[in-house]
């Protein structure tokens, strides 16, 4: 049975490592500052106790005044999972890319960039994946008009 680690039992470990990283921790997920996302993710992946070596998926949700990125991490060895979230503001949505940690993030980040308009710094090949170059706008945004 995959043990879903809640924000509460992971947040203390993260705050011990990066004092001001955790913005909010609830029973579902732990929300981290977007600037420190890469360091926290690297910490989560490399510490032996957590060992989140399998990035299940990345989703992006548009909450009108901010975008929320949801990283669903799983550890195959310990069979536990964690939902890591980060928020970036709407007018300059940029988040460090996780491709150097998990190569599986490559196409998912390109898709989020294409449909939601969030740029991922450090992504090797960030361009549209589902739509064609020269397409105006990002369709999955709530304020997208045909």
């Amino acid at each position: 049975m995959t043990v879903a680690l809640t924000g509460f039992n992971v947040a203390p470990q993260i705050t011990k490592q990066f004092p001001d990283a955790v913005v909010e921790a609830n029973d579902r997920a732990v929300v981290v500052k977007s600037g420190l996302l890469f360091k926290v993710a690297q910490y989560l992946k490399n510490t032996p106790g957590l060992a989140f070596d399998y990035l299940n998926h990345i989703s992006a949700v548009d909450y009108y005044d901010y975008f929320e990125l949801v990283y669903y991490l799983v550890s195959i060895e310990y069979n536990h999972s964690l939902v890591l979230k980060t928020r970036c503001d709407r007018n300059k949505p940029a988040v460090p890319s996780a491709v150097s940690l998990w190569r599986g993030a490559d196409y998912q980040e390109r898709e989020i960039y294409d449909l939601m308009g969030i740029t991922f710094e450090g992504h090797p090949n960030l361009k549209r994946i589902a739509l064609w170059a020269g397409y105006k706008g990002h369709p999955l945004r709530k304020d997208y008009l045909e």
Partner: protein
Amino acid sequence: MEIEKVTPVYSAAELDRIEGQEIEELRARSQQPIPDPDRWLKDEVQRNILLTSVDAIINWSRRSSLWPATFAPACCAFEMIATAASRFDLSRFGMEIFRASPRQADLMITAGTLTWKMAPLVKRIYDQMAEPKWVIAMGACAISGGIFASSYSVVPGYNRIIPVDVYVPGCPPRPEALLYGIRMLHNKITKSHSDIQLNLLHKG
């Protein structure tokens, strides 16, 4: 003798930009559906001419060996494959082989949703098919965009891009429905009056 690698890599961004431009132009151009090529109906009614025996032979030969091009974007593709497989055998109608290249195909069964990104390619494949050629629009997506008609990236129907001869509704249409559509196409071909300028035969 050392073989040294020269790697003039293409510029992907440049190619994408050109293709993107092409899609935008085609999208602007194709806002109205292309009228279906039903020329044979009008001629038939107006001049009520009998088909010459040459026409009959030609139409019989064209009708009984229509080779479909494998154009299989989405779900309807697997109903088309099921039709071609052993249970609903397509080769009873002489459509034995699915030709991969449009050069050797005379029928395009458009089995799947058409998106704007795919539209210029469909136009090019259709243009590269040899005459005489026909198109069966298979499935609701091919006829009118179907369940995805309200989407931002779906072409509402193949007839915006290429002239369509027979429409087979269904999502996906059952193999029997597709076979019925193919039979309708056969009837259409039988009645078609190929524009022969046989000045040899027509003396006066």
